[in-house]
């Protein structure tokens, strides 16, 4: 399909942009870029490893374009260098392990809060002006205006430290071996509840307001009035005529929200000491582990692009006007 192909090309360009930023940043800073990039390594790195790292990041003798191509070459062959903090682990291994947790957390939270928020928004719009609408709208204002870092800290304080109901760190009990056992999965769920709760609190309100407003903007449309004139039941009109159409702009705004979701998820992981990308990144920032910091931009961008692509595909599936006959 032409539309999706065009999107794919665009995503490739966006990924290249992220790589370009990575390439130029150390070179734009005052001082020696090699020194900046690997300063935290100190004397611990064996010279041949440092040489390999330099090559990966395009620090070769030659003009800038040659350095740039070298760097792009390593990225597209899947070589993001080695972490300095966790030397000699490759950046891809460090980030790959963390990515699973982040995607799991983010994905579940997005699905849960999108579903919940959309339903709340539908009902609020349908009963506009009612007490329910006021509660949803005002609740959403409160939930969305509080930064994720604040919500996480408050949640971890009350449910973790004060009430002691849930663990305040790790993705699972460290004493357990990671395996597909009921015990391990249960532990993962138990550890995931608080971060999930936080993310859902941060996200649901936004989805609810978006859906509510999109739906209210549609309620005056002729096809909604005709659906009522047809004698269809209230819930049928609400779901199949109003909500079904309001879902389209809501899904496209989901694409823009993904960045926020990702950011929120990073912060939440830091607060909950959850072993996802956010936490790895936090450690990397503290240790000035630049290969990991740069690697995460690429991985995050790729994650974001995949998520965007999923949104594109669902949009095409939802809107018959985009399908080619």
């Amino acid at each position: 399909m032409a539309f999706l192909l065009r999107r794919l090309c665009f995503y490739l360009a966006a990924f290249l942009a992220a790589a370009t930023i990575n390439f130029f940043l150390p070179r734009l800073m005052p001082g020696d870029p090699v020194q900046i990039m690997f300063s935290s390594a100190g004397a611990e790195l064996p010279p041949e490893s440092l040489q390999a790292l330099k090559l990966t990041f395009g620090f070769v003798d030659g003009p800038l374009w040659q350095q740039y191509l070298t760097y792009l070459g390593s990225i597209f062959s899947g070589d993001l260098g080695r972490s300095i903090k966790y030397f000699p682990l490759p950046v891809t291994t460090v980030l790959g392990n963390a990515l699973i947790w982040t995607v799991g957390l983010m994905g579940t939270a997005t699905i849960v809060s999108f579903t919940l928020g959309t339903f709340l928004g539908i009902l609020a719009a349908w009963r506009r002006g009612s007490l329910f609408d006021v509660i949803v709208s005002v609740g959403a204002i409160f939930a969305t205006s509080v930064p994720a870092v604040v919500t996480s800290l408050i949640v971890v304080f009350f449910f973790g430290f004060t009430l002691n109901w849930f663990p305040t760190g790790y993705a699972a009990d460290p004493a357990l071996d990671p395996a597909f056992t009921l015990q391990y999965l249960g532990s993962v769920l138990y550890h995931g509840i608080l971060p999930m709760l936080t993310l859902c609190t941060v996200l649901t309100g936004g989805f609810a307001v978006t859906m509510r407003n999109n739906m209210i903007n549609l309620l005056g449309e002729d096809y909604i009035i005709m659906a009522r004139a047809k004698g269809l039941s209230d819930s049928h009109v609400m779901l199949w005529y109003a909500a079904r159409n309001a879902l389209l702009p809501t899904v496209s705004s989901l694409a823009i929200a993904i960045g926020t979701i990702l950011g929120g998820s990073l912060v939440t992981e830091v607060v909950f000491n959850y072993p996802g990308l956010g936490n790895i990144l936090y450690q990397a920032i503290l240790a000035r582990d630049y290969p990991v910091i740069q690697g995460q931009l690429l991985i995050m961008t790729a994650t974001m692009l995949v998520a965007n692509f999923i949104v594109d595909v669902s949009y095409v599936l939802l809107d018959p006007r985009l399908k080619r006959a």
Partner: protein
Amino acid sequence: MKTQPFGLIRNRKALVGVAIIAFILLVAIAAPLLTPYDPGARVGRPHQAPSLAHWLGTTRIGQDVFTRLIYGARTSLAVGFGAGLLITLVGTALGILAGYRGGKADEVISFFTNMVLVVPNLPLLLVLAAFIGQASPWVIALILGGTSWAWGARVTRAETLSVKQKDYVKSAEMMGEPRWRIMTFEIFPNLISIVGINFIGSVIFAIITQATLEFLGLGDPKVVSWGTMLYAAQKASALSVGAWWDILTPCFALAFLGIGLSLLNFAVDEIANPRLRTGNRLGRWSALIRSGEGRL
């Protein structure tokens, strides 16, 4: 869509929002009058619980939390409004330019806008801040302005496209007004509600993001702001040692400011699009239905 100049005053959400922001602003301005302490100085024992001498307790190194809170409000507000203004300026200018000029200019601007929209903002900021090192609040405001204008540009462009078709723009073109004049005096004034929403949204975003970056250790720890307060408290494991005042104080301050700004944002949204209103405006209608004066 009627413009209601007094809409903001009559909107309850707007009133509460403005009151919250004004309160924080006043406290920030009057900070030296409200506390005898210096925000950076050690004035007590470490992690003292709230008391008469230290209303909100002390930090790990014995600084007064209340003092840091009200001085920190200055930084958070200044960065929030500064960066918000910058983001709005860039976004509005690019949006109007792309929407009005069309053609090549539009293609280039739209391409970059869409690109910036799909590169995740926080990770990008983290990389930038990490290379800059301990970023001062003003540097943070600058990078926020440089990387976060895309949403505003997109919305402004869409709105410009519809305003551009209006008769008064057409007639200004016929009279041979220069393009920059049309963009500044014919188009911009008609985008004011979009620009307003964009501005308040950007301020919220800037305050949240600054706090987040500083919390993650990318700010300058010597600066007193709500973000660095969070960072210091988290680093001192304030929660696990039970010094809740150290970490919850900036938390609630950020939440409070965020709620104030959001209320204002929703109010502007409702005034620009009256259909979105929540309040019950059907008092008389309901009374008439109940008294049997009429029905539907």
